[in-house]
């Protein structure tokens, strides 16, 4: 296995895990707030997103973006074919967009930690977080699929 394949496999593995984590949050966890109410969901989020989530998400998020950037940089430096450069460049762009969306979503979730248990206030914060999470999850899942395309081409 050469260095390009090694980096691609690492990028796919971390992006795949992050894609599953994001889809679970968007499709299973966040919709629960409508059933149990914003206050009860915020209590759960303080133990989940603001518990181990503070370690897991940054590690996976930074790792996935880093391996994607490294694989793309290597492809340019080693003058790989356009067939591989195209999906890798697209994955790099999607990774940047995911990071940008995360910089909007994360502060909203962090602000829930010390927010009072006010239903209306927490509902507004959680709705805002859910919107930005949907954006970043879309970019991130697309990154994963585009990297799989790059692996096939390589």
């Amino acid at each position, binding site marked *: 296995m050469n260095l390009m394949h090694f980096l691609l496999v690492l990028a796919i593995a971390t992006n*795949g895990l992050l894609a599953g984590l994001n889809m679970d949050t968007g499709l299973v966890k966040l919709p*629960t707030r409508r059933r149990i109410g914003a206050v009860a*969901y915020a209590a759960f989020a303080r133990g*989940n997103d603001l*518990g181990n989530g503070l370690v897991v998400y940054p590690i996976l998020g930074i790792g996935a973006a880093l391996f994607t950037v490294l694989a793309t940089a290597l492809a340019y430096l080693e003058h790989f074919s356009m067939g591989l450069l195209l999906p890798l460049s697209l994955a790099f762009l999607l990774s940047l967009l995911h990071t940008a969306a995360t910089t909007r979503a994360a502060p909203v979730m962090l602000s829930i930690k010390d927010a009072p248990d006010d239903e209306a206030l927490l509902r507004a914060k959680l709705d805002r977080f859910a919107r930005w999470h949907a954006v970043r999850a879309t970019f991130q899942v697309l990154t994963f699929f585009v990297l799989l395309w790059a692996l096939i081409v390589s």
Partner: protein
Amino acid sequence: MPLVALVRDKREFLDMVDTTVILVVSTTALSGIAAGTSLDVSIRQLPARHRIGVLAYSVYSQATDLGTAVFWYISVGISAFLLALASALVALLQRVPMVHTLPITLFASLWVVHLVNNRL
């Protein structure tokens, strides 16, 4: 061997390989998402019960069971399992080299173990 037959054989061979590659890539895509989902439940959601208490966690857990969780987990799990089995079957039927068939079959076997473990 006539040239036409050789070309036809080569095309058939490439078609067979393409089928295996498509199945393996599809399995990888779904399995990656399934692994991320499991990781989220194991190291983010479940440990939350120690921080917020089992009663508060139970309220959340029961609400997810009534929501999209059942549909999402079952559809992702079953789809990935079926694709993994199809990949192994096609690889064996097409006599793909053992260096590729072995990990594909091992992967499908691990999905069987995963599903059996879920039933227990």
